């Protein structure tokens, strides 16, 4: 028996990256640009370490030649710390990790709720460049929180917007506009990321219409590379950081906790 029956793994530890630029995308929503080519696929995430503040997962929202970015909503102490940082400050980046969106489909609809739109911007650009016809339906609480309006226009991607308060676009949910896209645009695959109640609605609509779909799930991640078990899903035991975060419509049907509950950092269940 030889001693090298398995391939050596690269180190799983953060590497410091200087923040190249900080762009305000929307209210309480910043994009942090870094130099480098992580070779990420849309839907994958990185673990971002701010020494002293902790480490959290963020979906990659942009990837260009020689640079990439994550788009972050200020929601708690960790992101507040990050919002205090500026170009030139350094943070640790680990990854990219996780299963990406498949990028299949000729005519696809991307449905993003709130900051869940972040990874869909990257997906829209990659699929559009790959020759797919991409439609986007994105929603937020109000117009001040809508992100990527200019980005989608610039990329000539047809995007429809919804706001809860009607301050811009359709008054209502991004899932309402998905129904419209499915009726008129001969969509053959749907991609979605956002609050789980929204994903549940996307899943319901796609099941009814018989359209294939993929969903990016959010759970409490600790290690990010599949050993700790804090993001394991009930029903299958799949790890969001490893077998996910992207799951197909068929797979969602096997995840018994989907749309019902998730776990906090201690493992206690919290209703969705």
């Amino acid at each position, binding site marked *: *028996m030889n*001693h090298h*029956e*398995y391939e*050596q*793994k690269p*180190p*799983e*530890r*953060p590497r*410091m990256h200087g923040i190249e630029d900080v762009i305000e995308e929307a209210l309480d929503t910043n994009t942090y640009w870094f130099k480098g080519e992580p070779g990420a696929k849309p839907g994958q995430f990185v*673990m971002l*370490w701010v*020494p*002293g503040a*902790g*480490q*959290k997962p963020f979906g990659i929202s942009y990837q260009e030649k020689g640079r990439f970015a994550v788009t972050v909503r200020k929601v708690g102490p960790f992101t507040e710390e990050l919002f205090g940082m500026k170009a030139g400050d*350094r943070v*640790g980046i*680990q990854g990219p990790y996780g299963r990406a969106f498949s990028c299949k489909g000729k005519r696809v609809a991307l449905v993003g709720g709130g900051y869940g739109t972040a990874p869909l911007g990257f997906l829209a650009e990659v699929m559009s460049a790959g020759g797919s016809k991409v439609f986007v339906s994105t929603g937020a609480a109000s117009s001040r929180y809508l992100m990527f309006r200019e980005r989608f226009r610039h990329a000539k991607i047809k995007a429809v917007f919804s706001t809860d308060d009607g301050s811009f676009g359709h008054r209502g949910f991004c899932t309402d506009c998905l129904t419209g896209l499915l009726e008129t645009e001969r969509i053959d695959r749907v991609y979605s990321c956002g609050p789980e109640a929204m994903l549940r609605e996307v899943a319901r609509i796609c099941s009814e219409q018989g359209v294939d779909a993929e969903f990016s799930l959010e759970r409490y991640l*600790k*290690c990010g*590379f*599949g*050993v*700790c*078990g*804090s993001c*394991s*899903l*009930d*029903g*299958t*035991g*799949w*790890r969001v950081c*490893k077998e996910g975060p992207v799951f197909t419509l068929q797979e969602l049907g096997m995840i*018994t906790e989907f749309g019902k509950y998730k*776990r*906090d*950092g*201690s*493992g*206690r*269940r919290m209703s969705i």
Partner: protein
Amino acid sequence: MSKVPANLTIGLFGKKLRNPLILASGFLGVTKSSLKNVAQNGAGAVTIKSISREPRQGHKPPVVLTNGDVMINAVGYSNPGIEEAKREFSGLGDVGVPVIASIIGEDARELGYMAKNFLSREFAAVEVPLSCPHTPGYGLLAGQGTPEATLEITKAVKGSTSLPVIIKISANVQSIGEVAKAAVKGGADAINVTNTIGPGMFIDVQARKPVLGFGVGGLSGPAIKPIAVRCVFDVYEAVRGSGIPIIGTGGVTTGQDAVELIMAGASAVGIGSAIHFRGIEVFRQVCGEMAGFMESEGFSGIKEMVGIAHD
């Protein structure tokens, strides 16, 4: 040597295990569904992540890192506490293999309480780690790694449950044989050696700071295997007269590694960090490699190899 079909099954505390590989506590043991997933990937038995009386959030991330052949962790015993854990770990027949509980407590009294109030008959055994090197209030940092504390705690847990009791001891102590003997004296049904080793520390030289949220953490992974082999060897020497089984844990990543620990004296083998180094399929891979080795070397069962490295 003639070729014989290798049989990987073992008997442990009156239970039959389809192979000697046991999921080590702390890895993927947060939920029953996760344990079932590990069982479906080939483990012979699984151990839950340790449960404390009250819920614990654990240490701040980063909680696990690797570099080369070493993993470092300071998860800090995050767990949902006794009440929610009882609900989580019920109907354990679903898992498909024996499930071992793991309990922690700040002293013998609290561990006795945990054993009495948490453990159901659905568990195959209970493991008590007296050896975590990086969580204040528990294990080594609470002085639980001495022969005296080991004896007191083992007795307290044995007196509070009818389940077989596994005492998980540390490689960090000089007198590992004395600690093992104390566990035997206290009535332990098995000894698991070792826990993570250290603690160690990773510093990021650009950040100029320790990387783990807690600063220090226990070491595991292929790099610590020689220490685990030595510890199992020493513990086997110390307790061989008692016939108590040893679960050898530490850095096992290949079939050869597992056989090495068995030859040092282990009757069963823990697997943890290898879930990262080879993927969750590691259980099946290690079984295949063990079977291949046994067939080519003419061993028909695990028992024939246990402790044969000793004179």
